[in-house]
């Protein structure tokens, strides 16, 4: 059992932070790696890239968006409650080295995954420019935390309720025009990552993306998380979750993420009916 020691609602309750006691995982976890959580006996195995880990407290932190039955179930867990299973750390950690100037682009809950990577890149001696965005002001998460690890931080909202009125890609384009960028890291919704890679491509700036495809075991057994990278199948769980964004087939990834759309609706409906009783 893996006890929740801290819980926070963010972005109007649409995003949840859980700090979870998992000493073995906390001891090993590095930025960019993920864990699989399962709430109870009948639950799904849900992969989540970690937002933080603290070997001294023996805890890991995940920040997730509530999107369906399983994340609704996760949301219902309070401090003191436990996840039945936590497996990790899984996947390859981000390669953190000094390359010069790095732009870190984050969207939605992707910002949570981006934060430890931006921090690691800063500590490695890079100049880090952060660009984070969400639909509206109240959906922006971890702004202060990102500001603390970035040399410069830009905030964007789709509706203009805060910072730049528009997309993260608008700012990214401007930055690429104005200075030499050595690396871009983009983590967020798949369409955002896709557009970021399209923008950086003509500038020949290497662009890392962190993917979260559907998977079961997370240890290379099911092959559900396969992603086409440079025309070759890669398993996000053992080869990723980070890949060279210029080589990823994002359209295929988006289609594959829709695989269980109908089932997800059915499951959420069944869950809500139970809650209403």
């Amino acid at each position: 059992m893996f006890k929740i020691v801290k819980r926070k609602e963010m972005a109007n309750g649409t995003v949840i932070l859980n700090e979870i006691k998992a000493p073995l995982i906390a001891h090993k976890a590095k930025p960019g790696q993920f864990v699989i959580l399962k709430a109870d006996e009948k639950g799904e195995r849900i992969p989540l890239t970690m937002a933080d880990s603290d070997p001294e407290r023996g805890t890991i932190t995940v920040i997730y968006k509530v999107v369906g039955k399983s994340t609704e179930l996760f949301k219902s867990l309070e401090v003191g409650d436990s996840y039945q299973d936590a497996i990790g750390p899984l996947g390859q950690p981000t390669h953190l080295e000094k390359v010069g100037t790095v732009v870190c682009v984050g969207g939605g809950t992707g910002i949570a995954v981006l934060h430890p990577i931006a921090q690691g890149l800063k500590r490695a001696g890079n100049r880090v420019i952060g660009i984070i965005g969400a639909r509206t002001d109240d959906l922006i998460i971890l702004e202060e935390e990102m500001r603390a690890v970035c040399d410069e931080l830009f905030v964007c909202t789709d509706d203009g309720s805060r910072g730049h009125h528009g997309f993260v890609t608008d700012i990214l384009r401007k930055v690429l025009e104005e200075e030499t960028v050595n690396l871009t890291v983009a983590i967020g919704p798949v369409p955002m990552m896709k557009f970021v890679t399209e923008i950086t491509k003509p500038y020949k700036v290497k662009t890392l993306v962190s993917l979260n495809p559907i998977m079961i075991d997370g240890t290379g057994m099911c092959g559900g998380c396969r992603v086409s990278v440079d025309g070759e199948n890669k398993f996000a769980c053992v080869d990723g979750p980070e890949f060279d964004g210029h080589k990823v087939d994002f359209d295929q990834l988006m289609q594959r993420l829709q695989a269980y759309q109908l089932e997800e609706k059915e499951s959420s409906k069944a869950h809500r009916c139970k809650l209403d009783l």
Partner: protein
Amino acid sequence: MADNEDGTETKTRVAMPEQEPDFRRRNFEEVPLGYTQEMAIKEASRCLQCKSPTCVEGCPVEIDIPAFIQLIKDEKVDEAIKKIWEKNRLPAVCGRVCPQESQCEGRCVLAKKGRPIAIGNLERFAADFAREKGIEEVSPKPEPTGKKVAIVGSGPAGLTVAADLIAKGHQVTIFEALHKPGGVLVYGIPEFRLPKDIVADEVESLERQGAEIECNTVVGMTVTIDELFEEGYGAIFIGVGAGLPRFMNIPGENLVGVMSANEYLTRANLMKAYLFPEYDTPIPKGKNVVVLGAGNVATDSARTAMRLGADTVRIVYRRSREEMPARAAEIHHAEEEGIEFLLLTNPTRFLGDDVGRVVGMECIKMELGEPDASGRRRPLAIEGSEFEIECDLVIIAVGTEANPLLTRYTEGLKLNKWGYIEADPETGKTSIEGVWAGGDIVTGSATVIQAMGAGRRAASSIHEYLTRNGRASKSVES
């Protein structure tokens, strides 16, 4: 009870009763229902009790088959099970999933007449009898040796190593990457062939004998082999099983609705997706399902798809019926349940709709040419014979490759060119002192009982090693 006057041989094997095909094809209950004691005695009475029994030679763990069969015949089932336990800790499992026709039963002298003793059925009978009557092995508790052994993977190899070493007085901890112990017995083999309660019982029995099981531990990631040694384990056995599923590498393979048998079966078995939405993990319910491959994993997938309500399920295989690697009994069961076989047929590409879901498959007809390296006739495509079939779910069951997770993070562990661990076939010893390996991570995909045999040999080697000295400390190693 026997038909013959001398009581040795009835004309035919006693068939095990089964659920009717029309009924069972839509449920997940076990298909064969088990012998009654009367049936078991009748079948046991056919055994000739050979002086030098060839059946034992065919058993990878060398169960004293004539002895336990005689005990069943003598109505001493509680002793029969103990006789089996001397060599095999998982008889309820092996009685169900061992390929007896190519092992013990294949070597039975009566096999020549086409009616070998139903050894598997009798083994299952004895094991189920023990389960129902709550018979436990009460071996005298061995003197603790104070040595600790780590076992990586809780599949058939790991469970066997654990049982053998506990019996010698060693302390064992089994590390399992998934959230439930049992390995392939839990995630791979379906409920209708191996009820999960049986696996759970076997695992619990091991725990009662003193085995510790740590689930959710991915050795290589959560903890490394070196760290296990630092924690005081004197020996380590690696039995992590098969890994990455193999795909066809043909166009359209990443369409939604095309998946590996590993994924399909793990959803169904480990995650109990056949009970969705009571359980949260979904599984695609295809109307027209195609399974590629013809081994037991393919028949398991096809029969699962039928049980999930498919209208048609077709197994597509590039060779002919004779070359199908699945057990004859499984092919027979599948056929009875309405599964079709599209033989001498190979897929060339998958066809999708505008949202990326599979809607069909293009195939080409094959013919058999000269024998290839495997001794089987090589399938050759017949030019211009392409045709399309409709399908909304494709399950790929063409084998697996070595899992790189543990091996990638274990320095000094010698692998062969396919990424499997190099281990001495006699002892299971690897290139690292104090580390043994066995099962699919050494041999590639094989059977439950072969993995158990490897576990048995490794356990004996580990015991000898621990008794003699134990692992030298790092400084004096080289």
